[in-house]
């Protein structure tokens, strides 16, 4: 009855989803029907579907609710209806994580799994393994082993897949099932064979030798299942990658032979594997590429898609190999499947010559409105790499991008376009004016606040340096009138930048800022007032410091420092110099030469740097010996430096943390011997003259496998010259106790002293200097007057780019205004460098390089402290 009524509602209602308006409480109420002494299978199936639907929609079930429902479901075992029974299995699996006492169904499921009803057996195995834990599993082991070798493929597969999942919790137990799994591997069924191989590999994964044996045995036997062969290819490819000489490996021959397999699946997998090997050359790739080329003209869309997607990837690393497929790719541009067409075009863009760009752009423009945002982003990224490759084509590409900007699209898509334009502006000075014009037109009609703010910021930075800064003012001021608060605030800041840069615009902008002071939003008003006061004061130094140069401190560290400042009641003003500076490493990582495509993968890791600094301060405050010292704000954390070979008994790396008065050496020690327990582990330093050791923090216990940190704290010497060049010898000292490798419990309480000599820790000039960016180098340069100048002949560099790199590395200063990029073929170059010395002393440097018989360097250093300037000039050379 109920079912019928449901059906009627479905027909009459507008909602196409019969489960659309479910309420958890109503459904749980309905679920009471499971408790009836006579079960109506149809009705119960319906209710169970509703419960499952709710669970999968993310509805939260409380433990009591879930347990109650679960026990109600268990009562459905009395029904013999096969459909209902399968729903019961699903219900059990879904609820098993929330409900309590799910173990109750163990016997019932065991009965189904070993019973005569074949239909139930696979599903029962899956449900059973979800509800059991490691302790129960032993009792079920016998049944599961039988199921693995069952003659029914679906039962065997279910058991295999479940054992695969169980290996994470009870790996040791599963290892005992190897012989059954081996037997299943010889099965005739394609799926069983595949699953068996998966389990077998998973069991042996940790043992490289065993895996090698397994693969070499299987590569010789001809497995029937294409899925299993595909998996084997993946395993083999992994092995090949780990070898030193991959191309001599017998497994590589296997991969190649699979290119001639009769199954398309296997062929593709093999081609994909070969192409993705780490150190392949064009010669090895070519057969794989030609296979993919054949796939490009296959009638199956899936195959075409797979092929073109893989080719798209190779196009980055081996463009020449892919060029052979260009004819086939051209045909795919008109493919009815838009995804294939997009990939084909982007591949062509990567491989194509400069001459074909115009034509390809036209092609793309014809269908760009039809594809999804996600693929549009792919296209935009391809264009980005193209711009870097062919800077001369920027006009075509830029007009195409601006057309895209005007189209409809989501935030990701617009952000990708804006990103691309910004990159082009930064890379290519010729394109700057047009790019900025496009962007300022774009913000006229931009619904994404984030993007508008970014672009306004960029306009503020780049706009004043163009030939006609005044034309951007209109665009920016329009924002102040029309947009919402965050955008208005950004626009005000941008206006201030213009005013600070271009004195002739100052009076006009002051008028505009005055109007902004009437704004309804606090932030906007505050900014306008601040800038107005700064600008009308006419003090160059002030404007330079607060408008043109941005905040150098890392925002996270600043927030933390302010937080702790507010907690302690103190009359002393807050000293911003104690706050860790924002690291600029992420910026440096941008490849100096335009290498298209790799851009996406490179930055990521170093961006966490500021977070690391903050987390180290947290660490310090947790160690009483260090917290006692009142180290103050962290100035700089240098990169890790290994003090041992990577495969010795004890692996030690050191990190130098520089504070204004102290140097903290952090030793990350790892014990790689399972049969030893180390106690009282500390690092003894051979302290050089001038330095003073303040504290040593030892590691009380260092068991196998869990690394820990030891610390030494040194006070900096007064003499800067000593401080900026020292070598500190280090020895690891500890007490060794032999212990049981399995439990980690020492055999006896007696231990013996031992030591281990580490490599020296070097302290040099760059440790004291933190590179920062100056957006307006010239203004900052004028501010400082203390100057030292020196001329050197650099013996260790033969080209200018090499010399620039050496100087930047040695001094630890950060290049400004992109002056570290040396135009090709020039015989002289000037680099502007900026940084902060320990203790917050600003340093600026100009390095003029001239190529003549080696490289000559004229270094001019300006610093707030004379000694520092002298130190720097003295240490170069």
């Amino acid at each position, binding site marked *: 009855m109920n079912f019928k009524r449901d059906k009627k509602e479905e027909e009459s209602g507008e909602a196409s989803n019969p489960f659309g308006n479910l309420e958890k409480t109503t459904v749980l109420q309905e679920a009471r029907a499971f*408790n*009836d*002494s*006579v079960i109506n299978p149809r009705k119960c199936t319906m209710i169970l579907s509703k419960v499952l639907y709710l669970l999968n929609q993310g509805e939260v079930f409380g433990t009591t609710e879930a347990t109650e429902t679960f*026990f109600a479901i*268990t*009562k459905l*075992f*009395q029904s013999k209806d096969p459909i209902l029974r399968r729903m019961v299995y699903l219900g059990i699996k879904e609820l098993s994580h929330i409900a309590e*006492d799910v*173990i*109750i*169904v*163990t*016997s*019932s499921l*065991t*009965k189904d799994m070993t019973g005569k009803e074949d239909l139930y057996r696979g599903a029962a195995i899956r449900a059973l393994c979800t509800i059991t834990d490691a302790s*129960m599993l032993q*009792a079920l082991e016998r049944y599961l082993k039988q199921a693995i070798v069952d003659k029914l493929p679906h039962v065997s597969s279910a058991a295999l897949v479940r054992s695969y999942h169980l290996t994470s919790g009870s790996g040791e137990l599963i290892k005992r099932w190897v012989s059954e799994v081996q037997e299943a591997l010889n099965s005739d069924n394609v799926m069983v064979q595949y699953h068996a191989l998966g389990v077998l590999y998973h069991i042996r994964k940790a043992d490289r030798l065993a895996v090698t044996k397994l693969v070499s045995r299987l590569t010789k036997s001809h497995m029937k299942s294409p899925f299993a062969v595909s998996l084997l290819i993946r395993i083999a490819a992994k092995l090949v990658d780990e070898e030193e000489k991959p191309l001599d490996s017998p497994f590589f021959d296997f991969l190649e032979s699979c290119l001639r397999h009769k199954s398309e699946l296997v062929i593709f997998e093999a081609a994909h594997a070969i192409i993705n090997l780490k150190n392949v050359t064009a010669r090895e790739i070519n057969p794989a590429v030609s296979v993919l080329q054949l796939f490009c003209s296959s009638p199956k869309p899936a195959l075409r898609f797979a092929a073109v997607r893989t080719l798209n990837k190779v196009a980055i690393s081996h463009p020449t190999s892919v060029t052979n497929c260009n004819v086939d790719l051209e045909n795919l541009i008109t493919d009815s499947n838009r995804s294939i067409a997009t990939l084909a075009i982007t591949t062509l863009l990567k491989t194509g010559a400069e001459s074909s760009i115009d034509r390809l752009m036209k092609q793309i423009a014809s269908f760009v409105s039809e594809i999804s945002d996600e693929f549009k982003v792919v296209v935009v990224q391809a264009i980005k790499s193209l711009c870097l490759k062919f800077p001369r084509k920027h006009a075509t590409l830029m007009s195409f991008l601006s057309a895209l900007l005007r189209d409809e699209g989501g935030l990701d898509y617009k952000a990708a376009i804006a990103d691309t334009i910004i990159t082009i502006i930064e890379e290519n000075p010729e394109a700057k004016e047009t790019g900025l014009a496009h962007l300022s037109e774009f913000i006229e009609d931009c619904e994404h606040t984030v993007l508008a703010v970014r672009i306004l910021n960029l306009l503020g930075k780049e706009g004043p340096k163009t030939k006609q800064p005044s034309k951007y003012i209109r665009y920016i001021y329009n924002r102040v009138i029309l947009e919402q608060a965050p955008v208005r605030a950004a626009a005000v800041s941008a206006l201030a930048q213009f005013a600070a840069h271009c004195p002739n615009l100052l009076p006009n902008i002051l008028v505009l800022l005055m109007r902004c002071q009437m704004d309804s939003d606090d932030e906007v008003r505050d900014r306008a007032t601040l800038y107005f006061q700064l600008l009308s004061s006419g003090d160059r130094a002030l404007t330079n410091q607060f408008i043109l140069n941005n905040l150098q401190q890392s925002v996270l560290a600043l927030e933390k420092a302010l937080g702790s400042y507010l907690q302690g009641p103190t009359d002393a003003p807050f000293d911003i110099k104690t706050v860790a500076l924002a690291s600029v490493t992420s910026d440096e990582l941008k490849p100096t030469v335009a290498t298209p495509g790799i851009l996406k993968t490179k930055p990521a890791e170093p961006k966490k740097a500021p977070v690391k600094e903050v987390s180290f301060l947290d660490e310090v405050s947790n160690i009483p010996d260090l917290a006692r010292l009142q180290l103050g704000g962290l100035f700089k954390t240098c990169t890790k430096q290994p003090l041992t070979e990577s495969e010795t008994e004890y692996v030690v790396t050191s990190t130098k943390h520089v504070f204004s008065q102290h140097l903290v050496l952090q030793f990350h020690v790892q014990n790689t011997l399972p049969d030893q327990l180390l106690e009282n582990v500390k690092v003894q330093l051979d302290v050089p003259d001038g330095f003073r050791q303040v504290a040593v923090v030892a590691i009380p216990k260092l068991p196998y496998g869990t690394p820990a940190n030891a610390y030494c704290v040194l006070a900096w010497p007064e003499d800067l010259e000593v401080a900026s060049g020292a070598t500190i010898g280090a020895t690891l000292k500890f007490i060794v106790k032999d212990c049981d490798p399995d439990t980690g419990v020492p055999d006896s309480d007696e231990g013996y002293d031992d030591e281990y000599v580490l490599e020296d820790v070097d302290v040099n000039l760059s440790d004291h200097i933190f590179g920062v960016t100056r957006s307006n180098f010239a203004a900052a340069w004028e501010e400082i007057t203390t100057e030292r100048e020196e001329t050197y002949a650099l013996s260790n560099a033969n080209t200018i780019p090499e010399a620039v790199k050496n100087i930047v590395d040695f001094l630890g200063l950060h290049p400004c205004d992109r002056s570290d990029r040396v135009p090709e073929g020039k015989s002289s170059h000037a680099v502007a460098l900026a940084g902060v010395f320990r203790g917050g002393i600003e340093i600026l440097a100009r390095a003029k390089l001239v190529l003549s018989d080696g490289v000559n360097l004229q270094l001019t250093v300006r610093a707030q402290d004379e000694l520092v300037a002298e130190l720097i000039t003295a240490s170069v050379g």
Partner: protein
Amino acid sequence: MGIFDKLAGLLGLRRREVNVLVVGLDNSGKSTLLNHFKSEESKSSEIVPTIGFNVEKFQNKNVGFTAFDMSGQGRYRSLWEHYYRDCQGIIFVIDSSDKLRFVVAKDELDTLLQHPDIANRRIPVLFFANKMDVKEAMSAVKISAALGLDRISNKPWHICASNAITGEGLQEGVEWLTGQIWEYVDRRR
């Protein structure tokens, strides 16, 4: 009750479906007992300790029994209560040779009878003094004294000695239960 139902009842064609709960300590013979009621081809040859519960169906006269065979192991006994509310009969199995654990059985029985889902309902309780063939087995009378069955006043109960392996005494007990269930069901109408 409709006229057809009455007619069918008179002719003995009326069918009832009831749920009964089979409980008792571990190793008292619950699963073996139910195994006896199964048809020849579905009988299992070996009985293993039940984990959680099993559902079995059998038929006596015109009553279809759905028996929830609960696990008797200590840590699963707390799960019995989930099934109290919708059962129309209880079978409590006792190992007559296990004198040591009569106290435990009594304890479990008392907890069961005092449970809110059971206490106020007049549902029939059938006791099987199982394993009567074992030499040191106690008689049904002695067991009923040991468990204090005479104190049960608001429920019909019956105890009979049984041997679940041969099936001796089982039929008698189940017939009593069938009769009680008819009575119970009719009174409720």
